[in-house]
């Protein structure tokens, strides 16, 4: 291996790593606020570029139907004025899609909002009614939704891979396209944005409070359902944006989100599902490891990435206290 290859591998690792990192941050956030381990985040991520491709070719993606159907169930679960949000949101989404067919900039927005709406509806319909359930039951639900959404992805988009046009054409140097720079910039902005949101904005602090202590937050007037919805909205937004930016580089297909999401999980577990910075750094580590293993044994790179779990779990095990109440 020479310096050029090393550089290429590191660049590749950085580009993938920030995406895993964003997914890991989203996972830690959702887990902290709702105790849901959001396994279907990979599907949400892939739905965005695939819906975009459909819109750009003038078709309505099946995900729109799914989102509207879930939105309807969401509205049925709400009472009174609470119904306005799902109903108006759904109507707005439909309108946006009608306008966006073939109009490139609007199509991006439509795909993005579709996924956010879908994510929030998923929370309201499937997770929020189970809020008293154990983490295990929530995890089983999440895994069930993962297979359901993945299967629906196959129904909606078929087994083919698609490559949407990049937002920015051309390469900076060999191995780094402008689109890649865009991904890095987006990651930087997201991390900064999240930091400011949680450190500076009152609402962000409220969200953290709800994550820390549900009852206490409720006593201070923070509604846990609202906190859960916001957490899901942020996570879906991050997933959808990552998906839209990454798809021109690595293609998009219904099955690809799961692997990306799993890498995010490995990173989140490195941080004990608790620490945001460790999760993000862990994601970079996962990506570097993956980059190098793919150089030596590319068929096994996805399997080998999970090897990193072993030292992470071992370390957590050593730190674990004896008996949980």
């Amino acid at each position, binding site marked *: 291996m020479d310096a050029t290859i090393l550089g290429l591998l590191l660049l590749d690792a950085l580009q993938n790593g920030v995406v895993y990192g964003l997914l890991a941050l989203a996972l830690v956030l959702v887990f902290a606020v709702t105790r849901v381990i959001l*396994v279907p985040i990979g599907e949400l991520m892939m739905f965005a570029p695939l819906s975009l491709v459909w819109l750009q070719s003038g078709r309505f993606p099946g995900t729109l139907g799914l989102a509207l159907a879930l939105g309807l169930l969401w509205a049925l679960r709400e009472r009174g004025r609470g119904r306005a949000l799902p109903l108006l949101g759904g109507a707005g989404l439909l309108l946006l899609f009608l306008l966006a067919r073939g109009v490139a900039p609007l199509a991006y927005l439509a795909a993005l909002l579709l996924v956010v709406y879908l994510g929030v509806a998923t929370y309201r319909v499937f997770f929020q009614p189970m809020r008293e359930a154990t983490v*295990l039951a929530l995890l089983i639900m999440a895994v*069930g939704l993962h297979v359901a959404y993945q*299967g629906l992805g196959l129904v909606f988009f*078929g087994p083919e891979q698609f490559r949407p046009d990049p937002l920015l054409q051309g390469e900076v140097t060999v191995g780094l396209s402008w689109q890649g720079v865009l991904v890095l910039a987006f990651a930087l902005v997201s991390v900064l944005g999240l930091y400011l949101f949680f450190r500076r904005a009152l609402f962000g602090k409220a969200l953290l409070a709800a994550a820390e202590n549900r009852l206490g937050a409720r006593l201070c007037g923070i509604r846990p359902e609202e906190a859960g919805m916001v957490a899901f909205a942020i996570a879906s937004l991050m997933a959808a944006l990552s998906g839209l930016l990454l798809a021109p580089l690595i293609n998009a297909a219904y099955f690809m989100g799961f692997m990306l999401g799993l890498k995010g999980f490995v990173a989140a577990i490195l941080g004990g599902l608790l620490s945001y910075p460790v999760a993000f750094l862990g994601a970079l580590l996962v990506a570097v490891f993956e980059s190098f293993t793919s150089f030596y044994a590319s068929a*096994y790179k996805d399997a080998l990435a*999970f090897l990193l779990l072993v030292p992470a779990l071992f370390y957590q*095990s050593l730190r674990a206290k004896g008996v949980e109440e």
Partner: protein
Amino acid sequence: MRRYLWFALLLLPFALSPFPFYLTLLNFFALSGLVALSLYVLTGLGGMTSFAQAAFMGVAAYATALLAKGTGLSPWAGLLLGLLLTLAFALVLGLLTVRLKGHFLPLSTIAWQVALYILAGNLVGLTGGHTGLTDLPALVLFGLPLDTPFRYAFLSLFLLVLLVLALHNLRESRLGRALLALRGDALTAASFGVDPAALRLKAFLLAGGIAGLAGFLYAHFLRFVNPTPFSLEASIKYLVMAVAGGVGTIPGVLLGAALFTGLEDWLKDLLPLLLGRQGNYETVAYGLVLAGILLFAPQGLWPLLARRFIWGRGPKEAAPGEGEPPKAEPLPLRAPSGGRGEVVLEAKELRKAFGGLLAVNGVSFALRRGEILALIGPNGAGKSTTFHLVTGALRPEAGRVFLFGREVTGLPPYRVHRLGLGRTFQHPHVFPEMTVLENAALATYARTRAGFLRVLFGLHREEEARALATAWEALRRVGLGDLALERADRLTAGQQRLLELARLLASGAEVLLLDEPGAGLRAGEKRELARLLLALAREGYSVLLVDHDMDLVMGLADRVVVMNYGEKIAEGTPEEVQKDPRVRAAYLGEVEAA
């Protein structure tokens, strides 16, 4: 006994013998049933889950396939190798995760499942990749080749029934109770001698082994292995079966296995027709069924059906003693021995802070044999924390704890308990889905030995009968004998306190730590409680109690330790501390007499 009716399943191959297709389905049902039962152990009893049961199947299936193709040894050697490998993998995965919070194990199983699936598909030289390994030998039993679905069904169903019976044994044993307790509340289980990590690990190994057996049977039934049946989707399918049928009951998981084995075939035909193209669309149905069950019938279908059509007669699943008190001799009580007045429990200079809050600061006291020592103080004085420090639920930052002269500082609760200390909780920790008797019998865990093998083979019955007799005796002593077979959630708050006390008596502990035993009791019940505690103290039990009820404490205790703001402010007889100005100040807010 009714449970042997399960052997009637072995008649099914005869009934279905004219329909080869249904014979094949019957075999698939038996194999799925095995895996679903492994999830009964893991999720239903142990409160864990695994998304890698199909991967465990795959390990065993590939092991036996490779051994048969490579060496030509008997497939039964392949079973041994397969089981060993499965257990080895489960051991590694388990050791890494059982000490962590509950969600790390299932998450890791996802990763492990995906990794193994990738390996099976890509190690082409070894596994044949996605083409797989073909022409495996048929199993031969007593000289008879099991090469038709009809013959094979007898083997697979027979093993299924054996496993059902073995798991019935497990449920009605010290280990079954301990697993259920662990699922509900690990601290309580640990307070009665259960080592949570060790027990979880064993349950995980058992579940892995069962899946391995299913994988072995799968390989020699199809006589062909490839990665597809060992994918994450397959693992999730088994979980859907178990959860949909009712993962907390044995009939439930089998119902789920039967339903989905039938449904899968039908879905595979129907969905592509509906959707107009080929693909694995049944996963959509699985996911949505799972979501629907979790939302609308979290206990699964079987409990719904059973409540509707079978149970007019009370919860069968939860009544091992079946009415009569067991005739067996109760377990031998270590009669409290040694001289009265000798120190049995001693705390020296205990200290514990939570962040900036100093909860316990330099507290010392000694409990003597046969006395009732009360620990009192205003809310937030650090009484419960002191309890946790003494029982091992929390580790002190400084100070030492001695039990019968042995240092137990920082030992986990299950080890402290085994030395003869039992405790109750501020809020009663009883297990609602178990009977009152089982709740009490949980406490005999540390006094009984039967391990997994003995229990699965049903060799624990004598010990089990004695454990139940012990529990029954303890219940009678606290006045709950008539309610022994009720579900524990039917008890009033006061009765739950008494049940906790019965649990202590059944555990054989001599040093009893009672956290607010009088809370929630009516006046009459309190008098009963006081009488019982005094009688126990006369017999040589040593009692340390925390309570707010001054009438109860002052009438009962030989000595009183008063705490405030984490420090001990007074100690002495009830009369002495009542006169102590600092105690009065702490309770009444009087200005301290300088």
